[in-house]
């Protein structure tokens, strides 16, 4: 009987692990005495897009870099798809698609060559068809034979997205995916992210409040390394009796005079 209970318990535990794609508990990052990220906790579920907001320097990128196992954490814990970011970092990285801030790319490589290289890192089968699929998905057909360095900013951003989704990851972490795009490109990229968000867990950071309102289901606002709001979009609007997000953001993150 006891054995059965334990089994049921562990089954439930595993089940929970799968439901929560990202689970962050009291995660901190210190640079010397400066606390870049200060004991933040939040969760993200599949099929939802989580907007990660905050002023510049609030710790958004640092958090994302810790979640992708790029920089080590100082304290706390975080799990992605049930894998610990420090202990099982390789598994974490296998399940994450990441678009870093400023979208760094190998500018000397050709678009296709670059995507083949990234796909090869994941040992993808059917690499050729997958690269073509991703090129189609991100609208890079016309530019696929160019060097990355020769592309415009909008197309570079698409290449950045393409490399993030090529291995069909369960979790997408996008650090300011729409910065510097023109209005037409914005609409296209947002539509793509929204489409991806239907099946994956997406965490994205941005400074555009309309964007958050348009595509995000849940919102986490951080300021000076601490979480100041964590709610659904409608919940947040209701709580603060506002019709848009902007005044709420300003109220929560404004420097006290």
């Amino acid at each position, binding site marked *: 009987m006891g054995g059965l209970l334990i089994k049921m318990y562990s089954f439930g535990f595993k089940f929970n692990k799968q439901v929560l794609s990202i689970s962050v508990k009291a995660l901190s990052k210190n640079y010397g005495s400066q606390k870049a990220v200060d004991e933040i906790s939040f969760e993200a579920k599949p099929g939802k897009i989580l907007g990660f907001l905050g002023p510049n320097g609030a710790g958004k990128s640092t958090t994302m870099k810790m979640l992708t196992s790029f920089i080590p954490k100082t304290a706390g814990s975080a799990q992605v798809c049930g894998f610990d970011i420090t202990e099982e970092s390789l598994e974490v990285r296998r399940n994450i698609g990441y678009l*870093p801030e400023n979208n*760094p790319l190998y500018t000397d490589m050709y678009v296709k060559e670059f995507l083949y290289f990234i796909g090869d890192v994941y040992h993808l089968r059917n690499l050729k068809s997958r690269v073509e699929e991703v090129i189609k998905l991100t609208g890079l057909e016309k530019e696929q034979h160019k060097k990355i360095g020769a592309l415009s900013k909008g197309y570079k951003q698409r290449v950045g997205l393409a490399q993030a989704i090529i291995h069909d990851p369960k979790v997408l972490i996008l650090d300011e995916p729409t910065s510097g795009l023109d209005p037409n490109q914005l609409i296209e990229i947002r539509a793509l992210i929204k489409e991806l968000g239907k099946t994956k867990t997406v965490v994205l950071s941005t400074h555009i409040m309309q964007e958050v309102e348009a595509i995000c289901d849940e919102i986490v606002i951080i300021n000076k390394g601490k979480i100041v709001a964590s709610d659904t979009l409608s919940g947040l609007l209701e709580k603060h009796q506002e019709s848009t997000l902007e005044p709420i953001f300003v109220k929560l993150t404004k420097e006290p005079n």
Partner: protein
Amino acid sequence: MLTIFKKELFAYLNSLVAYITIGVFLLVLSLFLWVFPDTSLLDYGYASLDSLFSTVPYLFMFLIPAITMRTFAEEKKEGTFELLATRPLTDWQIVLGKYFASLTLVLFALLPTLVYYISVYQLGAIKGNIDSGAVIGSYIGLFLLGATFVAIGVFSSSLTKNQIIAFTIAVFLSFFAFSGFDSMSQILSLQKFDSVLINLGINEHYQSISRGLLDSRDLIYFLSVIALFLLVTKTVLGGRKW
């Protein structure tokens, strides 16, 4: 690791860097061996490649840092290291992939010099009058020396975002590792330890292999120095402090 290796090697071969550095290396070497009278093989009078094996280490000191300086410095400067490090790759796979790609390029630079061996072989008063055993030994020595310089170069590149700084550090470290210990051992107050110091330097082991005698101690020396520098490189990268 193979993926990184391929990517790095193609990056070299698709850019002019590889062709220019290897081209200049071969040009300078040819000048030394066939034109400049002091080191000319023709003026030497014996069928021997000694001046090749005494010149190449000094050329490698500049050639290899030029090849390796971009390995990590460029990735850090452009931010692309973040692209690599957030993949399911271990730091070792990244370090070794880059290391072997640079080493392959050094091998490409070394291969054409076999022509000199053939030339001297043909030119001997009695054809083939050359100590082939010593030449083979010297090539193995040269390869190990190159492999060590590549490890030093990759390490230097991991220290900084600036390729010129990486180059300078690598030249200095390579020079010091090659002949610095020998020269240090001549300092009067250090003469008590001179044999220890000489044994720390690359030159002693390189000369030993060049005699055509492959001693396991020399081999272990080279492999340990390479392993040491690659280990430190991996540690530096693991810190992610830039």
